[in-house]
């Protein structure tokens, strides 16, 4: 299967490990993630006022690229666009719904982009990788697992953008289980965390990292109290707030014990028996390698 793939800016730099582990894992499942040519920044976060149109131009431009990919033969009859970064996913999906439900606005946006070779017709579907995997079937993924991660206690974290608002949520907003189901198919021992859907503080990390550290402390310790050894996420911003900001968490709470925060695709890569290089652990702030080595996973 060849499917259009939208990486987003951060996956090209500080979250490169998310991209490499995802592409490699997908390949092992016979999914080729084909990067959009000439994609542009999605312009996260989704603009919420009724009259704003300019901030929906960036997502729509990317949808035109998907159309172009079909025309140039990079993909065949495939208008689904896979996204990994939760922030990008939310912005793109909401913008898509906005223009699909408001054809007048789509007309205005298309007219603004007159220098593009084509107009956005409204055919694209924004899909998160987890949803794609769910459609394929987690039992099929289980069949491909070479190294079940049974010794690892994993607590998945969702954050906001994957679940809310309901029209874009990949699962139930109050009690999602999609990540748990995936991790179970990889063989992990899944630890539930009541704070798995509580916001990490998002962009407040730029102006006030103290607030983020406070939220991160609650989110992480609730998982740790239940025995979690590692947290998984699907968002480079959540990863930054829960991983890099552990520095501030430790300053605020000297007794706090570090816990690695991984992208769910990094665990997928290990379970599917792929090379450690695809995981790019050097980009994780709290290094997970000693933990994973002790579990004989790498």
């Amino acid at each position, binding site marked *: 299967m060849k499917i259009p793939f939208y990486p987003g*800016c951060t996956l*090209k*730099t500080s979250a490169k490990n998310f991209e490499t582990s995802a592409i490699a894992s997908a390949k092992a499942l016979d999914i080729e993630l084909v990067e959009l040519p*000439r*994609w*542009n*920044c999605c*312009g996260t976060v989704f603009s919420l006022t009724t009259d704003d149109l*300019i*901030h929906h*131009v*960036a997502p729509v*431009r990317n949808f035109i690229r998907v159309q172009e990919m079909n025309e140039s033969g990079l993909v065949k009859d495939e208008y689904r666009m896979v996204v990994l970064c939760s922030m990008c996913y939310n912005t793109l999906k909401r913008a898509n719904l906005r223009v699909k439900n408001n054809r007048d606005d789509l007309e205005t946006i298309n007219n*603004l*982009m007159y*220098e593009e070779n084509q107009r956005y017709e409204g055919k694209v579907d924004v899909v998160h990788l987890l949803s794609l995997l769910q459609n394929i079937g987690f039992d099929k993924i289980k069949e491909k697992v070479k190294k079940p991660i049974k010794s690892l206690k994993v607590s998945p974290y969702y954050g906001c953008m994957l679940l809310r608002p309901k029209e874009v949520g990949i699962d139930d907003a109050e009690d999602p289980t999609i990540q748990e189901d995936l991790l179970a198919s990889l063989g992990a021992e899944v630890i539930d965390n009541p704070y798995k859907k509580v916001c990490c503080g998002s962009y407040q990390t730029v102006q006030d990292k103290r607030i983020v550290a406070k939220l991160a402390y609650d989110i992480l310790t609730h998982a740790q109290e239940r025995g979690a050894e590692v947290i998984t996420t699907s968002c480079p911003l959540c990863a930054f707030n829960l991983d890099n900001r552990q520095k501030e968490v430790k300053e605020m709470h000297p007794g706090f014990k570090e816990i690695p925060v991984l992208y769910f695709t990094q665990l997928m890569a290990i379970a599917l028996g792929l090379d450690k290089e695809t995981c790019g652990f050097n980009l994780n702030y709290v290094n997970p390698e000693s933990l994973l080595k002790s579990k004989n996973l790498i």
Partner: protein
Amino acid sequence: MKAEQNRVLNSQEIMRRISTASKPIVSGVEEKDVEHWVTIYIMGKGYKVPADLTILTAIEYAGYKFIRGCGCRQGFCGACGTIYRKKGEYKLRTGMACQTRVEDGMYLVQIPFTPAVKPSYDLNKEEYAVSTVFKYYPEVARCVSCNTCTKACPQGLQVMDYVQAAIKGDFKAVAEESFDCIQCGLCALRCPSEIVQYNVAQLVRRMYGKFGTGPVPAYVTKRIKEIAEGKFKEDMDRLTKLSKQELEKLYSERKRESEYKETKDSD
């Protein structure tokens, strides 16, 4: 009354002299022989000018004298940015005055300068990472991919693409796409997010050149060593002491490239 009359005459005479002094000397064509004329509007005032002039020479023909906003006259320096509108259209277009022919009904203004922010940096002290771009130009994160900059570029560059490449940290793409930028500043003036595209590109090109293009070629290192050892000192001293006429003679009688024999390691 007589003194007042004299004053009026004098100011008319003065204006006539100014206008004549600014007129370009077009060799071989007399004004009476010009067949095709057009009317252009410079800052709202109409002038009849020969149809085959560029905006730059047409403005001079009309009697304006450029002391700023005019440079190489060859389309390379970016000094003569113009915003103009064609008759019957509503869109504001951009172009270099020295490279754009006039059209009848053209409505134009010169933009000789863009007062854009230009932070100073020492590349030896910076990381080769996207964070350095954000350090000096945080506004680049505000790009909404509207493509207004691309539409404004008189060089036809894909400006939005290179700004996006900068955000993604793809410095090679920025360097390649922005290579022909002449720093005219028109993109920055139109940008709704207040980004200075060309300065961002310049920072990235410098970083890419320093850190991204691989090791310094052997012949460059060799030549720098030779210079430091004083291999060219005698020749340079001799040259700098020559008079203008001697230099001109030396230049016009120089050996042409085709006369050189091809060598592996040229001196």
